[in-house]
C-alpha cells in the first residue's frame, strides 16, 4: 500500500510500523535512555512510530534528541497533527518525520507492516505481512 504523506523532516526510513493511537508527551511518557514508551511498556527504538501528535511539556524536543544520543530513537515518526515540539526535536535528532492524513492510524490499526520511505519522495510504502 502506498500512502501520500507531507514530509516535515526528510530522510530514508525502513522499519516495522508501530501504531500508538494517542498523543504522546515525550517528556514524562518516554524514557530516553531505554527508548521505552511507558504507557504501554514497549520499545520505540528502531520502529516507524505512528501516533496522533504531541502533547504536554516543551522539554519533549530534548527527549527526542536524547533518544538519538542514546541510540534508542525511532527510525522515523508519523503524526496526524504536527506541532513545534516534535518537529524541532526531529530536526535536531535528524529523525524523519511525516504528517499523515486523519484516519490513517485507525485504518492501519494493529496490522503488522514494514514502512519504507525514500528520501525525496512524498509517500511512504506499507508492506503488510
Amino acid at each position: 500500500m502506498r500512502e501520500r504523506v507531507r514530509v516535515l523532516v526528510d530522510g530514508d526510513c525502513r522499519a516495522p510500523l508501530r501504531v500508538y493511537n494517542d498523543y504522546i508527551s515525550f517528556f514524562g511518557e518516554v524514557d530516553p535512555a531505554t527508548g521505552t514508551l511507558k504507557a504501554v511498556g514497549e520499545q520505540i527504538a528502531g520502529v516507524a512510530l505512528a501516533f496522533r501528535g504531541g502533547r504536554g511539556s516543551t522539554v519533549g524536543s530534548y527527549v527526542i534528541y536524547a533518544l538519538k544520543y542514546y541510540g534508542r530513537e525511532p527510525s522515523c515518526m508519523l503524526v496526524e497533527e504536527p506541532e513545534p515540539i516534535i518537529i524541532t526535536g526531529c530536526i535536531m535528532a535528524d529523525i524523519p518525520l511525516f504528517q499523515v492524513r486523519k484516519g490513517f492510524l485507525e485504518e492501519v490499526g494493529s496490522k503488522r507492516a514494514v514502512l519504507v520511505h525514500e528520501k525525496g519522495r512524498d509517500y511512504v510504502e506499507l508492506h503488510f505481512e
Partner: protein
Amino acid sequence: MYLTREQERMLNGEFGWVVAKAMSIIVKTGEALGATKLVEVAHAHVSGVSYSNILDPGLEFIRSLLLGGGRARVYTTVNPGCVDYSGLSELIDGSYARKQAVIDDSLIKMGFKPVFTCIPYYHRPPAQGEFLAWGESSAVAVANSVFGASTNREGGPLALASALTGFTYYAGLHVPGNRVARVLVHVKDPRVRGNPGALGLWLGYRVREIPLVRGAGQGLADLKIMLAASAASGSHALVVLEGVTPRGFYSTDFVDRVEVEWGDVEEYIGTEPGGGSVLGYLGCPHLYPWEFLEVYRQVVKRGVLPRDRRLLITIPVEVFEKHYSEVLRLRRLGVDVAAGTCPVVSRLTRVFDHLVTNSGKAVFYLSKQLKANYYLTNTLGVIRAVYGERAG
C-alpha cells in the same frame, strides 16, 4: 520561506556556526509548519534547562552553544533548574547540583537572565500583540490567554534558538486567523470553578480545539493553575477566557458548546488522604509574592505541621530573596520552601503516601513518578489537608 538579507547571512554562517544552527532550527521548524517569513521576538523564555530532564545530551548541546560563541540577541529568561537555589530545601534532591551548575553557567554566560522560574511574566509581563518565543507550556498558555501576546508552544531548543537569533517563524498562534475559539465551555458550578487544577485537566483531556471558557473566574492565581493543567494534559497554548483575554486577539467560530459539570471533573481529583505520610505541594506554576504571603499567613496562623505531614512551596529565586525571613519562619514550622525549582523538574529526597496539591499539572507529572495517591483541591484545601482539618 522569505528571509531578509540579514537572516540569510545568519543562516549561511556569517555570524558563526551557533547562529547558523539556531537559524536552521527555526527555519526548518517554520517551513514544516507552513511559515513564509520570520518575525522579531520581544522576549524568549527558555525551557528544558533542568539537568534531571535533559540529562547529558541536553547539557552538552547547551554547553556547545556557549563555547561556539552563542550570545542572547533579545531579552531572555530561563525556566527552573533541578536544584534548590535557596540551598535550604530538604525535599528537593541536590545530587545533580554540579551538572546543573554547568548548564546554569552556560546560560548565564550567554547573557540569559537567570530567573529560574516558570512564570517569566512575573519578571516581564508581555504587551498585547507582542511576538514571543517561549518554551514552558504553562507560561505559553498564560501569555496567549491572559496577556494577549502571541507565542507558540516552542520546544526548549527552539526558544533557545530564538534567544540566539532574535527571531521566530511566523506561523501557528502568531497568525490572527489561527486564534479562533471553536468550543464554548461553560462553567456554572462553583465547585468546578473552585478547583481550577481539575478543570484544567478536564479541558486538556476532553477538548482538543481552542476553547472559550465562560465563567472560569478572573484571578491570575487560579487561571495560571487551570492553564498549566490544560497545557499538560492536552496541548492548549491558547484558552480564550471570557472577560480576561484582550478583545481583538482572538475570534470565535463555535462548532460545539459544552457545560462542565462537577461529575465531569470529579474523576481527576483523586482521594483525600487518610493515614500515612502526606506531602502538600503549592507552587506549580511558581507563586507570585502575594500568593506566597497569603500561604505564609495561613500557615503561620495554624502553627507547626503535624507529624508525617510536610508542605512544599516552590517560588521564583527573586521571591525567595525578597522574603527570606518569611521562608526561615516557615521552615521552623515544618514547611519546605524551594527557590528556582519544582518537583516536576527535579527529584524528591523522600517518598510520601499521599500527594495533596492545587496543581493539575503537578498531578499529571508527579502522580506517575512518585507512585503516590493524590488529592487535587484548591490552595486553602491543600493547607487544610496537611493540617488534618476537615474539608468544607
